[in-house]
């Protein structure tokens, strides 16, 4: 593999972590739920996914149970903020911190252990094309499934009744309720879906991308996923591009260093976060544009007690 092949192939792999988590958060936010606990959900799922895969040797099982773990953590958030009407920001942060602590506890006995990563896909003919093959057609299957998932979510949100219901819950819950949508149920479902994808993202990080468990290994990737949703102005296509851009920036740093390019490495390490700040500043400079795409009732608790 040449450095440029490594760079492009690695970008796809690195971007998948961001994309999975950001897609989940997108759905939750579309329903009006701002869940800031993504980092914690990912950490718990990464620990659970690793432990299950380590004990059973079954990557599929590890992934599935990690998804369930993600859902369970997200439901803690959902119960507190939807049923008990607590502030979403505070609850999300609390659940995120809880998740980080919980992941350390779950993974304690497996600290610093490794597992063999699952094989990558090998498509006859396509995988053997020089350059194109190693970059695009020798990835783990999750990389491709995540891309398909992005398309499916985009379709669902924009073209289906279910998507309309989710968006209505996020734009104007009262109106949605008036149209006999059950806003709280929709929000529960959306948050749980976000938890599922955050769980998959965590499992991808601990069993495929970096096949080992170490406490703190999510290392801020959940926060980047939250930022990506704003970055992509709640549009699937832009979030997809954003995730790949972030994958590229985070990997470009390492490639630039290995090539001996004389940019201070501290600056390069800070790049993903600097890019986030710049893009957020640019997007926010036009308030109208931001408001156009942001779910109108994002972050607002809905008590559902209004007369129908």
């Amino acid at each position, binding site marked *: 593999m040449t450095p440029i092949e490594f760079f492009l192939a690695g970008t796809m792999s690195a971007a998948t972590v961001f994309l999975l988590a950001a897609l989940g958060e997108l759905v939750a936010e579309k329903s009006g739920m701002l869940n800031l606990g993504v980092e914690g959900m990912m950490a718990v799922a990464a620990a659970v996914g690793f432990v299950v895969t380590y004990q059973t040797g079954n990557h599929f099982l590890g992934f599935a149970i990690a998804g369930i773990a993600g859902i369970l953590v997200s439901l803690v958030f959902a119960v507190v903020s939807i049923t008990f009407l607590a502030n979403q920001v505070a609850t999300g942060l609390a659940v995120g911190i809880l998740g980080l602590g919980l992941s350390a506890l779950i993974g304690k006995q497996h600290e610093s252990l490794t597992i063999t990563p699952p094989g990558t896909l090998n498509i006859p003919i396509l995988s053997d094309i020089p350059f194109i093959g190693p970059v695009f057609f020798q990835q783990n299957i999750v990389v491709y499934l995540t891309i398909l998932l992005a398309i499916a979510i985009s379709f669902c949100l924009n073209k289906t009744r279910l998507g309309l219901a989710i968006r209505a819950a996020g734009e104007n819950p009262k109106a949605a309720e008036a149209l006999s949508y059950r806003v709280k149920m929709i929000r529960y479902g959306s948050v749980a879906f976000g938890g599922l994808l955050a769980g998959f993202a965590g499992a991808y990080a601990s069993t495929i991308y970096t096949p080992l468990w170490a406490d703190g290994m999510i290392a801020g990737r959940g926060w980047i996923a939250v930022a990506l949703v704003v970055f992509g102005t709640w549009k699937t296509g832009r979030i997809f591009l954003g995730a790949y851009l972030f994958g590229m920036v985070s*990997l470009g740093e390492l490639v630039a260093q*290995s090539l001996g390019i004389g940019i201070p490495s501290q600056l390069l390490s800070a790049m993903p976060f600097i890019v986030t700040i710049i893009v957020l500043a640019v997007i926010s400079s036009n308030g109208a544009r931001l408001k156009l795409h942001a779910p109108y009732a994002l972050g607002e608790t809905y008590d559902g007690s209004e007369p129908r």
Partner: protein
Amino acid sequence: MKLNSLKKMALAAALSVAAFGATAKAETLDIGVLLPSPIADVGWSHALVEGFNTVKEKYGDKVNFNVVENIQEGPDADRIMNKMVGDGNKFLLLGSFGYMNGGLKLAQRNPDLSFIHASGYKTAKNFSPFTAKYFEGAYLMGMAAAELTKTKKLGVVSAFAIPELISTINGFTLGARSIDPEITVDVIWINSWFDPAKAQASAKALIAQGADILFSNAQDTPSVVSVGEEEGAYVFNLNSSMKEYAPTKYLGVVKTDWAPFFTASVEAHMAGNFDGKNEWLGMKENVVVSEDWNSDISPEMMAKIKAVEAEIASGARHVYDGPIFNQAGEEVVAAGSRLEDGAILGIDWHVQGINSPLPK
């Protein structure tokens, strides 16, 4: 009723604490240990734990360890240190560079306590920094690497650009080029003590770049080591053996055995003659030990390595013996002279043969 039982509980807790405090004072020495990463079966924290386990064996009930792991450097660490002192610990082991300033302040406020601090450079009467001369072991690894490399490109995944890590990379490079002067070394600084995903991606980037030997510099997890096995690059690391993560491609380990130093320090504290100074320990003190050598290294090279090892341990040879050139090709250490200890402890330049610029 509820309030009453709560009060009772609080009272009981207070009593038990008081009772515990009293017995502790009479008999045992409470030793507080602050570690930067979770304790695992391998890595930096593991090596420290091994060290104080020996102390525990020697003194039995006379010492009592209070260990807090996975503490980030910064205000949180300062708070926990203060609490440890408040809880009655009389001897503190601070396990990371970044605990230095907070620890030193605490030492100055509590002259009757003794502190040993990893990787730092500031000292006080009751505050001893301790560092391993990793570069001695890394030099030997460099020699072995020079024999096994085919591409003549070595790669280093490194945490932060602090003197301890820079001097180790330099030692590795000097060792390799002592065998084959054509060898070059690439370094990736990940600017984190702890980001396994980044460490693995860095290792892969180095391999894509042509490196066929990897050095996992101050990485606490087997991240880089397992990539070496997967991708077929020989790999070595510091502190504790990770051979099981790379059964065929493990070059060796530059191990640290802190037991002799920890035991001596605790002994000095108990005798009341703890004297803070910069403890810089290497092969001579048996703190730096190179072992678990790969069987692919030829017997001739192994003999050469053992000979150099003996010379370094005896002091007849030093890794930083001249002539040594910097990256710009200027002679920094003349032939026949030796780089001073102070200059190595504060080193901020790379030797010739390292391609990557040093972040300033």
